[in-house]
């Protein structure tokens, strides 16, 4: 038991240690929503409204447009962070690259519009810069973050076109979204094409990974059952171990079936604009 506890402590220390070292803010996994605020910058109602609106927008037009608010990009330059986040989240459809993300980093006092390859003609840099310079940052400076981001999204959707129920008044304009222009140049592939041998090796890797994961779950079950009986004091509830397994499974299944945002395979190449306040 002592050995096990020692190991656990070591594991926790290692995890904490790496977290503390991260002055560089890692790119988080793809958000599950169209609008995300991890900085508490916007009112929850604003986030919910934007999320519903952008979700409906995707259903209507196929374009993926996100709002993402996080405190800071750490030591990484804003543009570097956002292009990597775009690549990781794969916003927009594959081949069309019709994605766009409005980023706000309150601690850094930075706003960025990151434009997918397919929207570079629809939302040129000068347009993105104007939206930031004339609409978003003045409102933030005036202490109206919710209005700033909402108005920013209004203008972005107006530029891209095709929103069914024009929120900023006006008759509902039926889908007149211009088809995104696919790049004339060959697609950049994040990973070079693999040969079958590599894929096979990867399959084996995944299998081994899955086996290890199952092993860990069983170990957790064992631990949870074991500790109370052997006089462990830090597990007070007598849940049977399946509680933990259920939780783990639930979170995995939940993230797959909840119908949240998931990237369509789009890419960006650093187009867009950055502003600060």
């Amino acid at each position, binding site marked *: 038991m002592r050995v096990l506890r020692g190991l656990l402590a070591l594991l926790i220390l290692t995890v904490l240690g790496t977290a503390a070292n991260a002055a560089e803010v890692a*790119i988080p996994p793809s958000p599950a929503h169209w609008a995300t605020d991890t900085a508490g910058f916007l009112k929850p109602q604003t986030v919910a409204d934007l999320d519903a609106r952008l979700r409906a927008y995707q259903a209507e037009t196929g374009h993926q447009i996100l709002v993402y608010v996080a405190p800071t990009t750490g030591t990484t330059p804003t543009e570097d962070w956002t292009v990597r986040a775009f690549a990781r989240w794969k916003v927009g459809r594959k081949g069309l690259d019709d994605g766009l993300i409005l980023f706000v980093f309150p601690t850094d006092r930075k706003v960025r519009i990151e434009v997918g390859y397919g929207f570079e003609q629809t939302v040129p840099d000068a347009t993105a810069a104007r939206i930031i310079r004339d609409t978003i940052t003045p409102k933030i400076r005036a202490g109206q973050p919710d209005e700033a981001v909402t108005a920013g999204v209004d203008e972005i959707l107006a530029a891209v076109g095709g929103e069914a129920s024009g929120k900023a008044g006006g008759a509902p304009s039926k889908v007149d979204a211009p088809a995104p222009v696919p790049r004339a140049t060959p697609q950049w592939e994040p990973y*070079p094409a693999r040969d079958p041998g590599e894929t096979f090796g990867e399959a084996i890797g995944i299998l081994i990974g899955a086996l290890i994961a199952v092993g860990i779950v069983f170990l957790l079950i064992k631990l949870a059952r074991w500790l109370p009986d052997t006089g462990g004091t830090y597990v007070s509830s007598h849940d049977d171990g399946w509680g933990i397994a259920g939780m783990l499974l639930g979170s995995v299944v939940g993230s797959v079936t909840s119908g949240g945002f998931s990237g369509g395979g789009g890419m960006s190449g650093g187009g867009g604009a950055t502003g600060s306040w």
Partner: protein
Amino acid sequence: MNRGLLVLGGLVIVIAIAAMGLAGTYNRLVTLDQAVQSQWAQVESVYQRRADLIPNLVSTVKGAANFEKSTYVAVAEARSKVGQLNLGSGVPNDPEAFAKFSAAQDGLSSALSHLLAVVENYPNLKASQNFADLQAQLEGTENRIAVERMRFNKAAQTFNTTRDSFPTVLVAGLFGARFNEKAYFKSQPGSETAPKVNF
């Protein structure tokens, strides 16, 4: 007689296996080479995009009263050097051509950043809508250049790693310059905090 046939058969099998291995390695190099070439096309297109902005930029700053002539002349000259580059295809395979390309583009970069620094002394120009739009386009393009260069380096690195590993390096050698090592972009002067590639 049987023995002769056996040896012959064995030889055929060995040669067949060797040929298959060779073909597989060759195809893999071709695939990786294609990835580098298509990324090179992206790099060229973002640099072209920047060059296309220059005439408009020069005529805009010319219009501002008493704008320091030497700065925009330097930009125009650097741009024409870029325009005179006639390196053809295969630049990534040719370290000399690659160095020329880089040097010309870096020359334009530094002339441009000097000009943009000088603009700070002309508040009227800086505040004009026309210049603000141009500046946004220039910044966006510089950012695109940084991104595509980084991706090019990544693709080149993938190619080189495969090319130089054993036994691929033997196969690559058979084809001469076709599978030369790819050149890399070095971090631009003034941008020592080169973005870390982590796709």
